[in-house]
Every structure is written in structure tokens, then in C-alpha cells.
């Protein structure tokens, strides 16, 4: 059982004993039943965060010590320091390869440490022997050397760090004309694929790490893609981004049944598509496309992208994912619009057509999401609209007045929708409350005739007696965080409620036999559906403590076993 609940139980039991709700034997039986707090197999998140913070502070302290005096060392002296640091990192790495289990926590830590030290040393050397070269050459050195450590230790954290460096490289100014950086980046990302495949095969061992690795890998692939487009100044940039995003999204959608690790494919694919939505709504994008003539290489790449998109649509067709097909059609729409732009259609018309496609897509997502209760689709619709509206903020094609008025109207519309929902919610609440009041009045009428006790609505987290009837029966509500039942022999049986975390309230104790009740066995029953059938007490997961050792069902308003209050139903 959850550690927190056991701790809570051990804190509460003495109180219950003192109040006479449970006997010492029953309390002991409960303690035995819920058992001891077992040791954790892995360190808790809080401990990891604390460890990380401690390491961070130590690292920053060491950094400050060096930073104050670093430039007072001669370049050769700095080189010596760097070599010393690398030697320490290599010795630790060697120890890790020798002793640490591959892929274990220690191996992960050592791998990450090595990558961090190598990165720090490389950039310190680059600073010392400054030539103005871009960071690409240094990223290449770090990634090439660290990749071996990743394979030797099986360190996913080191791999994620490497992918982070590749992302840094992708977003930095670069030296395309000299040594073809994007090609190197693609080679390095390809070198990591066997490791990713290995992790993917054994994903049941550490799903969370594989998930993070997936995020990092997909992000790095996207970064490399943007890097390539920017470096070679390819035309049809929007089409390529749309193709990559759509194919990635389709890949994640087709394989989403295989587990959480596919989430990054859908997530980053969707982010890429949002980028396409934003970029596609600008007039400038289409004007630029109209001004450039794609070369043969670009056209060949475009054909390859089209083949990939077609493959993705086919896979989605097989899985009968209609909406995803509509989303994956995005690059085809973009491609068609680019063709129309080259045929002489104005950028404004093209932009309007693209916006129309996005609006239709968002509407379909909204209705589909609403009908199938898929929050992601509704969110996707909202993000698509937000992207379209957000893009207008910076759109120079519209005047400040036009943009300002559009934003004010959009904001007011959101307020109106919100007000409408608040009004509807309020009306709904009023209807329920009036229904509760009617039911309560009915019960009070029954109580007046002496057939049933008065039942007042109880809060789910309240504790204490709420009402007593003429027979002296006390209705009390108590908040309990645990479920389960213990029979008279002290043997425990678990009664699972529908909502494990819900509080339990209500229950009745005969005040004339409360002392005896504490000495006798305690019966705990889930009366959520049975005991409060047809009532509006507001109790959730009600537990009843009864002095009756036969576990006789208690009907607060005197309904016999097997009977139902059909009027209340």
C-alpha cells in the first residue's frame, strides 16, 4: 500500500481508539493488514531532485572557483587543467565500464558526467584558443567521443545530453560552406539509432527513460531537418516542414497502441504542424515561395517527401484513422498551394485558402474530440486557433488598428463563451440543489411520522455528528482515506471503492451501545451504493461502523433489507 496512507492510518488509529470507534485488537489487525512500509526499489523523485540540486550547487561552486582565476592562468596552464579534468572523467568512465551494470543508475550518472566534462573542456579550449569558428566543430568532437561512452555504458542520460548538444548545434550559426555541417549532424544522429532501437526493444525495463529519449531524439531530428533547410537555403521550406511533421505525427498515431514512447512522435509532429499553421498564415511566406524557383535537387527531395506522406496516409487508412488522415494531408495542401502561387494566384488568396483549410481541420477536430471525449483533439483545435490568432500579432500585412480590434474581439468572445459556461454551470448547480432540498423535505416529512431518521447532507471531508433522530441514533460523518473491511475475527477483507482516494463519510453509531461497539468487532462496509440508494446525502464512499457483529445492513431511514425506496429513485 501507498506509504502516505499507511503513515496516515498509523496517525489516525490512536485517535479512533481513544474515541472508542475501534478496539485495540481491531487497530492491531488493521496495522497488520496494511503491513509495513517496504523499501523503495528506486529513489523517490524528491530525493533525486534534492540530489540534483546538491550536485548543481557543488558544480556551480567549483565553476565559480575556477571562473575567478581561469583567465589568470596562461593558455598552456588552462590546457593542463583541461587535460587533468579529462583524465579524471576517463578514469571514472573506465571504472564505470568495469564495475557498473550496463544501463544502471550508476552507469547513467557516469555517462552523463563524462559528457558534461567533455563538453566543458571542449568549450574552455575553444575559448582559450579562439579562432572565431562556429560551435559546429566542437559539437562534432563532443558528440563523436561521447557516443562511444553511450554504447559502452548503455547510458540513456548521456544520449539525451548528446541529442541536446545536437539541438544546440542545429540552432546555432554554422559554417555550411566549409565542411557541410548538416551532413555530419545526420551521420551522428544515425549513429545513435542502434542505441535507440536497443532501448526501444527493452522499453519495459525503463519506460520513462525511453519516453524522454524519444522526445530528445525526435526533437533532434526536427532540429537537424530545420538546420539542413536553413543551411542549404532550400526553397519549399514550408512544404518540407509540413511533410516531416505530418509523417512524424502519422507514425506516432499509427503506433500509439504500442505505448507511451510514441507520444513524442505525435507531440513534436503536432508542434511542427502548429509551426506550419503559423507560418502558412503569413502573406510573406507565400510571397517568398512565389519569388523562388526550386532547383532539381529540391524537387527530387520534394518527391521523396511526397512518397513518405503517401506512405503515412496509407498506414493511417489501414488503421481507419480518418481525422489523422485529414491532418496528414497538410503537406499536400501546402504543396498544392505552392503550385497555385507559382501559377499566378496571389499570396493573399493562397493565405486565405490555407486559413480555410486550418479552420475546417480545427472544426472537425473539435467536433470529433467532443463526440469521442478526446481532450487532445479539442486541445489541438484550441492550439490551432491560438496559433492562427497569435500569428496575427506579428503579421505586418495588417495594420495595428486591424490587429488590435481583432485581438479585442477575440478576447471578448472568449469572455462571452466563459460567461455562458458559467451561467450553464450555475443553472445546473441550482437544479441539483433544489432537487436535494426537495428530497430532504420529503425525508423530514417521513421523519415526522417516525419512520426514518433525519438525514442532513454531509460534506465529504467533514467529521463529527450531524444529526440525531428521535431514537437516539447518531449520524456522523468521518473522512477516511482508506478502504477495506475487517471482520469480527480480526481478519481483514478489502472492499474496494470505485474511487480509492475518495473520502468516506457518514455512518451511524447507536449511542447506547457505543462502548460495547468499540469492544466488539467492527464492521466496515462500503455503503456508497447499497445503503444510500436513492438518497441525496452527498456522501461518497460512505462507511458505516456498526456494533452489530452480524454485519447487518443499516438503513438510516428504516428500509428493510431487500427493499428499495422507489419514490426517491
Amino acid at each position: 500500500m501507498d506509504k502516505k496512507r499507511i503513515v496516515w492510518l498509523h496517525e489516525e488509529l490512536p485517535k479512533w481508539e481513544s474515541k472508542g470507534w475501534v478496539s485495540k485488537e481491531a487497530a492491531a489487525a488493521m496495522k497488520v493488514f496494511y503491513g509495513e512500509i517496504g523499501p523503495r526499489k528506486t529513489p523517490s523523485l524528491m530525493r533525486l531532485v534534492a540530489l540534483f540540486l546538491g550536485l548543481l550547487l557543488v558544480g556551480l561552486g567549483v565553476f565559480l572557483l575556477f571562473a575567478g582565476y581561469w583567465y589568470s592562468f596562461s593558455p598552456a596552464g588552462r590546457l593542463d587543467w583541461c587535460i587533468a579534468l579529462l583524465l579524471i572523467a576517463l578514469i571514472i568512465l573506465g571504472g564505470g565500464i568495469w564495475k557498473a551494470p550496463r544501463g544502471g543508475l550508476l552507469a547513467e550518472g557516469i555517462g552523463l558526467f563524462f559528457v558534461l566534462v567533455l563538453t566543458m573542456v571542449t568549450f574552455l579550449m575553444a575559448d582559450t584558443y579562439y579562432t572565431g569558428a562556429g560551435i559546429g566543430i566542437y559539437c562534432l568532437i563532443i558528440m563523436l567521443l561521447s557516443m562511444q561512452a553511450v554504447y559502452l555504458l548503455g547510458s540513456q542520460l548521456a544520449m539525451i545530453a548528446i541529442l541536446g548538444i545536437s539541438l544546440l548545434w542545429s540552432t546555432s550559426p554554422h559554417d555550411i560552406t566549409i565542411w557541410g555541417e548538416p551532413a555530419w549532424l545526420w551521420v551522428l544522429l544515425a549513429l545513435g539509432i542502434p542505441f535507440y532501437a536497443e532501448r526501444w526493444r527493452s522499453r519495459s525495463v525503463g519506460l520513462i527513460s525511453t519516453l524522454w529519449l524519444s522526445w530528445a531524439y525526435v526533437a533532434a531530428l526536427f532540429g537537424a531537418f530545420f538546420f539542413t533547410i536553413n543551411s542549404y537555403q532550400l526553397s519549399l521550406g514550408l512544404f518540407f516542414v509540413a511533410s516531416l511533421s505530418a509523417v512524424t505525427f502519422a507514425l506516432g498515431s499509427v503506433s500509439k497502441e504500442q505505448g507511451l514512447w510514441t507520444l513524442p512522435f505525435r507531440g513534436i509532429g503536432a508542434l511542427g504542424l502548429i509551426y506550419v499553421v503559423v507560418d502558412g498564415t503569413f502573406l510573406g511566406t507565400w510571397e517568398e515561395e512565389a519569388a523562388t524557383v526550386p532547383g532539381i535537387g529540391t524537387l527530387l527531395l520534394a518527391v521523396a517527401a511526397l512518397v513518405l506522406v503517401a506512405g503515412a496516409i496509407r498506414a493511417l487508412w489501414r488503421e481507419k484513422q480518418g481525422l489523422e488522415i485529414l491532418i496528414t494531408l497538410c503537406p499536400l495542401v501546402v504543396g498544392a498551394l505552392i503550385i497555385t502561387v507559382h501559377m499566378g494566384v496571389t499570396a493573399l488568396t493562397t493565405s486565405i485558402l490555407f486559413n480555410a483549410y486550418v479552420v475546417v481541420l480545427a472544426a472537425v477536430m473539435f467536433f470529433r474530440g467532443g463526440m469521442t471525449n478526446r481532450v487532445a483533439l479539442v486541445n489541438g483545435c484550441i492550439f490551432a486557433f491560438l496559433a492562427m490568432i497569435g500569428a496575427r500579432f506579428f503579421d505586418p500585412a495588417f495594420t495595428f488598428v486591424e490587429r488590435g480590434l481583432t485581438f479585442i474581439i477575440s478576447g471578448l468572445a472568449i469572455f462571452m463563451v466563459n460567461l455562458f459556461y458559467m451561467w450553464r454551470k450555475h443553472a445546473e448547480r441550482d437544479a441539483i440543489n433544489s432537487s436535494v432540498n426537495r428530497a430532504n423535505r420529503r425525508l423530514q416529512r417521513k421523519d415526522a411520522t417516525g419512520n426514518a431518521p433525519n438525514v442532513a447532507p454531509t460534506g465529504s471531508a467533514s467529521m463529527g455528528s450531524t444529526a440525531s433522530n428521535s431514537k437516539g441514533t447518531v449520524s456522523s460523518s468521518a473522512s477516511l482515506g482508506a478502504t477495506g473491511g475487517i471482520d469480527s475475527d480480526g481478519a481483514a477483507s478489502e472492499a474496494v471503492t470505485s474511487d480509492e482516494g475518495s473520502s468516506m463519510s457518514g455512518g451511524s453509531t447507536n449511542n447506547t451501545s457505543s462502548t460495547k461497539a468499540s469492544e466488539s468487532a467492527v464492521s466496515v462496509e462500503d455503503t456508497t451504493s447499497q445503503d444510500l440508494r436513492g438518497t441525496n446525502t452527498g456522501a461518497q464512499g460512505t462507511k458505516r461502523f456498526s456494533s452489530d457483529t452480524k454485519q447487518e445492513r443499516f438503513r438510516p431511514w428504516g428500509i428493510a433489507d431487500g427493499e428499495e425506496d422507489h419514490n426517491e429513485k
Partner: protein
Amino acid sequence: MKNKLPVKWICFVIMAILTILSPFYIQQRSTSLRQGGVEYQWPVALSRTASWIPSDYLDVKFLGSRTNWQGTGLPVVNQEAYIWVEPKANGILEVKGASNEKPATGEYILARLTKVEKTDVEFQILFNRVTLDLNKVDPQFYTTYKGTLLATLKIKDGYGVVTGVYSKGVSIETAVPESVEQQELDSRTPLSQIGEPRAVDTKETEEREQQ
């Protein structure tokens, strides 16, 4: 298992050797420029970027970093380009143009385009640092100085390194800033005439005539 162990350690040894060599490779890139590069001069201005870590270098802004585009295709901002340069008789480099193609003959420097205006481009030379003992340099040189400063740089295969900065032929580590009046006069000197003996002579003659 018997085969796996040596392979693992062979990989580790190779990686360790390469890792230890990597700082030397970075060092060698710089020293080869200093030792094998051809030395030229360029008029510059100095600045010190806000830094909370005590540093040993100043940022160098190369004056006259604007030229016409001679490459194929339209230039774009952030594009890397070859700056075609030609040394004058006094050793100061003169910019002849910028292109995305390496010149068949002559000297060139790799730079990044920072601004594009029709056929004119502005560029930033990448090796924009000079290492100095900042305790010896008068802060005026990198704060308010308007006088002429000449940087010496060594260039090889488009890459380069700034080896020093001089005021009237004296390294700024030992030089004293000129008077404000003299700095004002220097600042009026056209870039093309910096370092030209005749330009200085002409100015002095004009001043004498005015007096």
C-alpha cells in the same frame, strides 16, 4: 563473453586516446594560424562586452565591413560568405567584395553576413577577439576612444586570428591614449586613407595652414 571484454576495452582505450588528443587538436588549430598565417593589418575599434568573469580579451570590431555582393544568388542574413581582400602597400587589407564562392586567386576571409541592402552587404568577421593583459591596457581604448587603432591579424585559408592591436605603432598594452583633440582629428580620417603617410601629412599641413 570472452570476446566481448577485449572489444569493450579496446573501444575504451581508443576513445580515451582521442579524448585526450581533442584539446591538443583545438590548440593546434589556433597555433597553426599564428605560425603559418600571413600577417596583415585592419583598422579596428575595441569594446569589452559586459562580463562578470574576469577575462583576458577584448572584442574587435573591424571597420569598413561593408562591400558589394559578387556571388551567385541573392545573399541572406546570417549566410557565411567569402570576403575577398587585397593588401595595400602598407599591409592594410582592402575589401574587394563578398561572395558565396571562394576566389580563384588572392586572399579571402570567412565572414557572416549581418545586413543585406540590394547588392550591398555588411559582414562580421568571425575571429573578433584579441587576447591582452587587460591590467596593462588603458580602459579608454575600449570605452570612449575615437582615435585610429590598427589590428594585426594572421590569415590562412579564410580563418584568422588577431594577434595584437596598435595605436600609432605601439601596442595598446603599453600605449597611452592620444589627446581628445587628436582622437577627433583621427576619427575624421577616411578609412581608405588610414595608414597612408600622405594622408597624415596632408592633415598636418592643413592644420598648420589654418593656424
